[in-house]
């Protein structure tokens, strides 16, 4: 359908062919199409068995127990359920939340909404590399902090936060729940829900070769309560009503299993491609790499280009290279990335940046094409801008 080089794996990934095949098995009359809640007959039970298997696959991939998995429609819903859920349930314990400026909108926007409802929110500012230092968390905790929400892997710059250290701090503080948005982590770095000491963790399938429209919130089995967002049929132990979409969770389960089964050499391969990409682009001059290279996943490279305007840069490569500036966005007028702004980049450089997301199907040839296209585009736009 499209011959341009796809380097927007951080926005979404194609579904693995094996995942697509497994999903197809759950759809038609011949497959496990039953409602997994219809346990009075085999059609429903067959679906329920697949849902249980998927639950175990997801749990195994992230160091959690199957009974800690609550299916959602994606990480956006998982984030909202975690934040509003804790806020609703523990509102008598306090009205303060701690998060960071570089979180995804699906964390920031619920926090803003809570501010409108009278909560106080502290937004930590990362260092210039995008790292939140655990002692920043320790210093910002207040007596009435009920929730800390810090993401694992940043979706724009790929920086990985030290969740284990933050988890230890939260446990010491007591009372505060730790939520981690790990939508970008699966298949890119180790996730250890129990080991990190996390209370709530958001997952998404479509960043890891699973389908869009499904995700999960991990809810630690001990001592974490939530007020649900959706009420109804009692599914997911009452935490999340709604028919469980068998094909979707089956796809997520298999995608997570495949991610876990990937050999370490795959990460090295991607890391080598990323370095090849960066070296190619660096030759342009006036390029700045965003995010701490030593503390980031190998799948992301975010570069600012001096002397070019962001939208024109995207437009110049369009049709031949699929990349993005910041996260997928729905507005007609591009805005400078708030993540890069939080790292201290000025507005112009924040806008004149490209996010390259590498993935399972990225080849050396893709990287070389990308380098060539971007060099061409930047050179031409710099000529037009006179810079």
């Amino acid at each position: 359908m499209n011959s341009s080089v796809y380097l927007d794996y951080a926005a979404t990934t194609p579904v693995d062919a094996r995942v697509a095949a497994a999903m197809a098995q759950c759809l038609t009359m011949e497959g496990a199409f039953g409602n997994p809640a219809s346990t009075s007959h085999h059609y429903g039970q067959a679906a329920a068995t697949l849902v249980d298997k998927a639950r175990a696959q997801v749990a195994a991939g992230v160091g959690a127990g199957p009974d800690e998995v609550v299916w959602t429609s994606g990480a956006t819903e998982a984030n909202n359920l975690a934040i509003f859920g804790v806020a609703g349930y523990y509102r008598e314990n306090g009205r303060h939340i701690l998060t960071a400026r570089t979180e995804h909108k699906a964390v920031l926007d619920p926090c803003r909404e809570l501010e409108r409802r009278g909560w106080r929110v502290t937004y930590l500012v990362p260092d210039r590399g995008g790292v939140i230092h655990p002692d920043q968390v320790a210093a910002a905790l207040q007596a009435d902090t009920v929730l800390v929400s810090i993401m694992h892997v940043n979706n724009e710059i790929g920086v990985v936060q030290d969740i284990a250290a933050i988890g230890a701090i939260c446990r010491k503080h007591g009372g505060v729940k730790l939520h981690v948005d790990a939508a970008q982590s699966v298949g890119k770095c180790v996730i250890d829900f129990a080991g990190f000491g996390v209370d709530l963790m958001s997952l998404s399938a479509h960043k890891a070769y699973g389908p869009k429209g499904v995700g999960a919130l991990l809810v630690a089995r001990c001592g974490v309560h939530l007020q649900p967002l959706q009420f109804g049929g009692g599914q997911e132990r009452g935490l999340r009503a709604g028919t469980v979409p068998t094909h979707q969770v089956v796809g997520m389960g298999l995608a997570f299993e495949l991610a876990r089964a990937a050999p370490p050499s795959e990460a090295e391969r991607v890391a080598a491609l990323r370095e090849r990409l960066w070296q190619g682009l660096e030759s342009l001059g006036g390029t700045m790499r965003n995010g701490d290279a030593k503390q980031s996943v190998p799948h992301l490279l975010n570069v600012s280009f001096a002397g070019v305007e962001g939208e024109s840069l995207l437009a110049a490569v369009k049709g031949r290279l699929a990349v993005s500036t910041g996260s997928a966005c729905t507005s007609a007028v591009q805005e400078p990335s708030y993540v890069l702004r939080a790292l201290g980049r000025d507005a112009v450089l924040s806008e004149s940046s490209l996010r390259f997301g590498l993935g399972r199907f990225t080849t050396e040839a893709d990287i070389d094409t990308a380098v060539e296209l971007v060099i061409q585009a930047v050179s031409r736009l710099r000529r037009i801008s006179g810079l």
Partner: protein
Amino acid sequence: MNYSELTRRYFDTAADAGVLDGPDVHRGAAGSHAQGTWVQFDVQISQGIIRAARFLAFACPHTIAVAAWVTEHAVGTVATAALPESVPDLSARFAVPAEKRGRLLVIEDAWIAAVASGLPR
């Protein structure tokens, strides 16, 4: 973001990007890099006629395309303190989304600044 065919063509070609040197060349600029839209025009005016025009732009594709079109179409016309076509007409011609129309005013300012300095006072 989708661009009309015309926008795409002028953005891709941007034939008149550059600067002019020499006598009768007048320069005008508007906007700022910091705000994401900056445009500069060089126009060569002799005997009240625009003989050549060039532009530089640090701007979005719509703005670059319109600036390129303006330089191309102004050549050979009588120099007046106005764009060869009004901002609303240019908006329509290049299918500029409503949220971006303000950027054409930067083009207009830069153009008028350039041409006006070459008009007999």
